[in-house]
């Protein structure tokens, strides 16, 4: 089910990315951590306290 990559041809940058599980892991954790978790918590921390 895979498309083998010929040893003579340098794989495309996107293919290199898709073949690197560890970079994908970093991206897959970092993107939601920044846009969802950290930004969300930042929103809550910055709620002004009631006088």
């Amino acid at each position, binding site marked *: *089910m895979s498309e083998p990559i010929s040893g003579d041809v340098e794989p495309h940058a996107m293919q290199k990315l898709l073949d690197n599980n560890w970079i994908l*892991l970093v991206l*897959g954790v970092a*993107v939601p951590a920044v*846009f969802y978790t950290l930004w969300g918590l930042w929103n809550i921390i910055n709620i002004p306290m009631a006088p």
Partner: protein
Amino acid sequence: MSTTTMSEYRVDPVSGLKINRTANTLVKWNAFAAVVFLLVGGLFGLGVALTRMPSVQLLSPEIFYLALTAHGLINLAVWIIFFEMAVLYFLGAHVLGNRLATPRWAWTQFWLMLVGAAMVAVAVLGGNSSVMMTSYVPLTAEPHFYLGLILFAVGALIGCFVFLGTLVIAKREKTYSGSLPLVVFGGVTATIIAVFTIVSGALILIPTFLWSVGLIEHIDPMMYRVVWWGFGHSSQQINVVTHISIWYLISSLVFGAKPMSEKVSRGAFLLYILFLQLGSAHHLLSDPGLTSAWKIFNTSYMIYLAVLASMIHGLTVPGSIEVAQRKKGLDAGLFTWLRKAPWGNPIFSGMFLSLVGFGFIGGITGVVMSVEQINMIIHNTMYLPGHFHGTLVVGTTMAFMAATYWLIPVVFQRKIALTGMAKWQPYVFSLGAWVFSIALMGAGTMGVQRRHADITFAGQPLAYQYPEIAKGLMDIGEIFGVIMSVGAVMFIIVVLASIFTGERIAEDSAPWPKVEDADVVFEKSGKKHIGIWGMEAPGTFVLAMILFATIILYYFINFKYLSTVWGMS
């Protein structure tokens, strides 16, 4: 005993896969534990369904909340994650003809998850931890409830890294060449989402455990909700990715199909890795502390990239089946390929019912309810259980059941027993689950609250009368919930009967006939083209257009409904 049976590997006569025995034992135990928990959680679910049926109301409120907590945790987390561990080990070891990295750590995964699940069960059945799956603070559960969840999550995290380590070994020992097969890449995607999910769970459950034993004074409820949903919703995204990988696997197994474009499918998995977890924000669309920018960016912009990925998978899986069927001669008309598909084979029927049901019921409603304005109509109503049963039961559970019918001969080396029951099971289960989900969403649209034992509010100081049709929808939904339970029991009977009494498949038995590769058959046929209107998969194109039209129609119906419940004058 022959040398082959004594060796570390065996060649499976059913699939032709080279199977590592140690890995296979772990696949078996994780899959078996999953099915046992499906039975236990399903029984609690039946109790919940028969209580939410206004004309029955089986359980007292105290027992109802206990049962709801147990059902949610066992069926949303324990059954599914145990099964996913089995799938990951199967993909990493069996599909790649590989051994498992660190089997001892894999056993640690199994026992930690089992002990964790048992601790949670003891806490819930003790009656003092009826905090439901979300366990929102300041609701307090017993400390061993949180500790059990933490152990379960740590076990799952270990399983993820065993899988990633297994891939490292496969690459080093060259058990595959080029890129990972697409189904294994789907497993990588699920694992990455799982890591984010489990880390989020640990970040919030560890302090909550410390709070429950008095070592921390206060947990901010709003912060809890943000971090918890990074765990709670993303855990369901692992399921989506896993069941989509199973769709690809089954289309290849049953039809000898190949993805229409493997590059596009991999790109769609990448979109999942980057954006799918952001959908967690839609649980917080009515929370006051979070800004509209955060809500809209996450739910209305970024999540659409993940929706795009789902549409790609939803198009390419049936498309690949159509292309394979047409290449094998079923090239007439728009839907001959579908009509003549093996509908009596539960591996295919279960997978296809999962695909269509997930798209039309779970998928469309998930997209529409992520719109901030529309979410206001249905937030915290029965619509939500309707929606997530449309994803997790109609989609994930049905796909896992379909895969099990293939896995039993391969992993347990037994033929499927009770084949007549197995043939009907996907239809009974899906009929129940589809109508259950739709009816609950209908009731939710009328405002029926979730998480309440009695929609009549009998004896409550603030009574509220829902329209009679809402009660009728709840009754209909729960009747079909019972039918869904019958389908689940049929599945469990078939699985247990097959494992314990099914005809044994000897290791040295003759290889089972292989499904012919569609490309090879096409080449032999001497034909040059398939399809009509210049398209290779016109039937799938028409189905995709029907899905598009349904999304648009449903979207506008909801905005129209919003205008009536939220008058401007």
